[in-house]
């Protein structure tokens, strides 16, 4: 076996190995969540500062200062809040629409309404919300 042929075989083996690797390498850590919708109260909170939440795995959209939030439900981990002022998603190899989960004044993670699951923040971060007049 000549050197060029050896190199060719090596390249094809490497390509095969790489192709065999899963591109879906970042999986979002999720756990099933028992979601309970809450009646609309009409109360809205305004986010006073930009907020970046890091996740155990994956990435979350930074929450923008000045956005309006309302509670739509609750899960075991906390109150589920959503906003109509920005798109919030969490992302790993796939993207998921997400609602913020707040407990004790902190964002503790995100609720994924389609998957009905919860992905935790790491660490939970304080959120500065004020009730809109």
């Amino acid at each position: 076996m000549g050197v060029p042929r050896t190199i060719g075989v090596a390249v094809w083996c490497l390509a095969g190995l790489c192709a065999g690797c899963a591109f879906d390498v970042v999986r979002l850590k999720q756990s099933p969540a028992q979601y309970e919708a809450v009646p609309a109260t009409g109360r809205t909170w305004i986010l006073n500062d930009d907020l970046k939440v890091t996740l155990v795995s994956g990435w979350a959209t930074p929450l923008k200062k000045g956005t309006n939030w309302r509670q739509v439900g609750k899960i075991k981990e906390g109150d589920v809040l959503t906003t109509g002022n920005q798109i919030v998603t969490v992302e790993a190899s796939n993207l998921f629409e997400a609602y913020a989960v707040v407990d004790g004044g902190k964002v503790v993670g995100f609720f994924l309404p389609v998957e009905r699951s919860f992905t935790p923040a790491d660490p939970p971060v304080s959120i500065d919300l004020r009730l809109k007049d």
Partner: protein
Amino acid sequence: MNRLQRIIKQGAFIALCCTMAACASGPRFSEMSGTIPSLAADSGRIYVYRTTVLGAAIQPSVKVNGEVVGSAVPDGFFYIDRPPGNYKITTSTEVDRDLSLTLDAAQTRYVRLGISMGFFVGHVYPELVDDAQGQSDLGTLHYTAK
């Protein structure tokens, strides 16, 4: 040298023609928006579009909950009306890329198709954008039916 320059120019021209041929050619959104049917009160609408011509040759099918509803044509858009519920938008190249979203009655959602580097081919991925961004992006795009 002149011959080399001529070859390069011809190559660039051919590449440009190929790119243009791969792009959408239907009516622009701005020209046809008046003819798009109003959304029924018990339905939501999802616009799916692709602005980038990067990787123009890669035009995977776009599936919604497993059903093929269109293709990721550069510079193109299409829309679907669906009952309120949960939806998964999927594009497949050498890997699947999913976007999960909720759709309410009378709600319009905008899904932009981006492209990222892949091993053999680029990956087309769906992302949810806000209404203002979606409406702004759609203006110059061409309608592509399924």
